[in-house]
């Protein structure tokens, strides 16, 4: 008789491996890429491809130079490249995603030993690097629905808003990220320089009609974060496959919902437009695809919830009082660093655990 395999139990295994998980994430990101194409045009796809090619190429090169097995087929570099590109404005220069991916893969991932060992999300680290180095290229280049049609700078937009009439409103709103606008208006209101039109615009931003636009993605913004609907569709695949679990996204979005309701409005406490804060900016992308990054989020169940709540808290703080209109990526980066500590501080109680009592 032939030799048979002898190994430890279990002798059955779910049809799952690292490669399958990563490529499923890629598939789950595709609806958002299609949405980006529909709203921003072909350039968003080009930027994404540049990001992916640079990420995969860098990973192969680094692994070749360090004489380690080349693992680009596992799809993790593809995910990093995609996520990085998804965090860029659609009209950003072509070299931005390339430089970002190279940094993300070398400094964010391979320097620590590759997949499984990186302390923070490589794509977000790459974005933070780009943001610090080329802030202009990272905060301009927003596209409208008609690709390349209007490129508005933040300051120009603000000027138009305060002086302009309502006729141009819809058109203008679609040409920059709505969060940007909301933060400007809130800032002006606090400083006492805002006119009535600013208040009107803010209320229109939180109207149901506008929320619908936000949900489907008919707004300005980064490539991948534009359509909440497409992102949720992709996330549903990952939840169904048990590749992501509810605690991080629900903890994150729930916290943002509550806190932005509390402090995110212009009519005092508990007046914030909840849905506006949930569907604008990178929250949906961040909560389902970046905060849930397996390697850099806590393993324990309570830890995951704390992680999600922490991300939500930081996001609202940055959005409300910070220097940037959006705080999703920095919040996740900060919580990434706290992950080992969270895991250590949230041991799980064994089933049937009881405090030691005198017998």
């Amino acid at each position: 008789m032939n030799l048979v395999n002898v190994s430890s139990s279990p002798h059955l295994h779910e049809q799952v491996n690292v490669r399958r998980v990563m490529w499923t994430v890629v598939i789950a990101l595709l609806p958002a890429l299609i949405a980006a194409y529909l709203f921003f045009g072909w350039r968003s796809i080009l930027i994404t491809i540049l990001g992916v090619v640079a990420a995969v190429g860098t990973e192969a090169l680094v692994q070749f130079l360090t004489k380690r097995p080349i693992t680009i087929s596992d799809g993790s570099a593809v995910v990093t490249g995609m996520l990085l590109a998804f965090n860029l404005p659609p009209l950003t220069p072509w070299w931005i995603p390339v430089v970002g991916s190279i940094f993300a893969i070398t400094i964010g991932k391979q320097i620590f030993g590759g997949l499984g060992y990186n302390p923070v999300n490589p794509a977000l680290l790459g974005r933070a690097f780009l943001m610090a180095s080329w802030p202009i290229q990272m905060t301009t280049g927003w596209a409208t629905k008609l690709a390349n049609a209007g490129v508005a700078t933040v300051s120009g937009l603000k000027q138009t808003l305060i002086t302009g009439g309502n006729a141009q409103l819809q058109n203008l709103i679609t040409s920059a990220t709505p969060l940007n606008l909301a933060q400007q208006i809130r800032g002006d209101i606090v400083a006492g320089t805002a006119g009535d039109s600013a208040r009107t615009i803010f209320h229109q931003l939180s109207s149901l009609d506008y929320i619908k636009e936000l949900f489907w993605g008919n707004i300005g913004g980064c490539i991948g974060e534009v359509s909440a609907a497409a992102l949720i569709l992709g996330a549903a695949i990952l939840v169904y496959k048990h590749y992501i679990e509810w605690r991080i996204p629900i903890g994150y979005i729930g916290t943002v919902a509550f806190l932005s309701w509390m402090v995110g409005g212009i009519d005092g406490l508990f007046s914030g437009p909840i849905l506006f804060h949930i569907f604008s900016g990178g929250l949906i992308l961040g909560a389902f695809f970046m905060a849930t990054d397996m390697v850099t989020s806590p393993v324990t169940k309570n830890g995951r919830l704390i992680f999600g709540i922490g991300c939500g808290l930081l996001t609202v703080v940055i959005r409300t009082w910070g220097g940037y209109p959006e705080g999703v990526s920095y919040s996740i980066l900060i919580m990434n660093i706290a992950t080992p500590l969270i895991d250590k501080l949230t041991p799980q109680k064994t089933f049937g655990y009881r405090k030691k009592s005198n017998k």
Partner: protein
Amino acid sequence: MCAKTFKGGIHPHDYKHFSNHKAIEIFPTPEKLYIPLVQHIGRPAVPIVKVGDEVKKGQKIAEAGGFVSIPMHSPVSGKVTKIGPYPHPTGTIQHAIEIENDGKYDWISELQDDENYYSLSSDKMKERIQEAGICGMGGAGFPTHVKLSPPENRPIDTVILNGVECEPYLTSDHRLMLEHPEEIIEGLRIIMKVLGAKRGYIGIELNKKDVIIIFKQMLRDHKNINVVSCQLRYPQGAEKQLIFAATKRKVPAGGLPMDVGVVVQNVGTAFAIYEALRYHKPLIERITTISGAIVNEPKNLKVPIGTPLSQLLEFCGGTSEDIAKIISGGPMMGFALPDLEAPATKTTSGFVFMGEKEVVDTTEATCLRCGRCVDACPMNLLPSFIADKVKNGQYEEAMKLGILDCIECGSCGYVCPSHIQLVQWIKIGKIEANKLKRQDK
């Protein structure tokens, strides 16, 4: 009533369709039997026959090696030809008594039919169970008379019969419940009487609806015995998880079911107890499933203890392609065997055969820290962290993480995308942790 369950766990495909419609067949007794002296937890049995001795069917051939031990009996009449080391279905080598079958099947004394068995005193009942050499037939094999003798400060009010059979492929308990429900209920009543328990449950998973219906009908007259229909979820049949599903009681970590007033017995054990009480019949045969996609005719067989696996497979028509893996027990917790020599024992609920395509790749990749093992763990442990500590030799740290509470169900290994052999690491760690624990004492 909605189906009960527990937290965590997994949903593997159950592969029971191979054999769940096959009625129990009696395996024609083989020419040679190999009765291991260890078929249970506790001290090995001690042989009381010598090479060359003639033995009868049902004759005691080995005595219990202590209180936590059981005697062994000959399933056939014939001659003792060897006593020595022999392959064992746990993948180890254990001492066994080899008996050559003379084909006469002479009983040591004709089976009696004691219809008044239920009026026996509880001590007398326990004595008969002990004499019959019965141990837990679900897999672990803990001597039954020990389980039925809890200390006085641990009163038992509930007995649960485990008919969950959550391991994929296995259908031996299913067929036994379907074909012998009355005997199983009688077995349960005996156990309840021995323990003075007021409530009885029979836990059955929803993939055995036929059995659930039969038991519900038969239990109409027994107000204190209920069927617990359990959701399909592995490891529903693990003792602590079943107790929780049936009674909502949580067995304390590191504790035993009796700490919450419960004793769990397998349905096969209940059947053996009934036969021991009524007919004075020792445990010399059991139902076992031979299954797998490559087995030509998967079957549920009544086999004499000690029958070599090779003959069981032959009786099932062999395999349609080369065997790549032989599993004694179910695929989630069973042992992989190197060959077909090992015999069926009192705890052998089945043998599963796998072809090349079904064998799981055991090459480990890096841990992604995804936490799927944590979500799957029915004991709410952190399997990947524990395995990490074991790999680094930090056994005390592993103990703090609850390594000794692991029930080795394999759910973590089943869902791991990096194919890390979590159960293997934990099993290794447990050996070291137990050494440390003994040193402390």
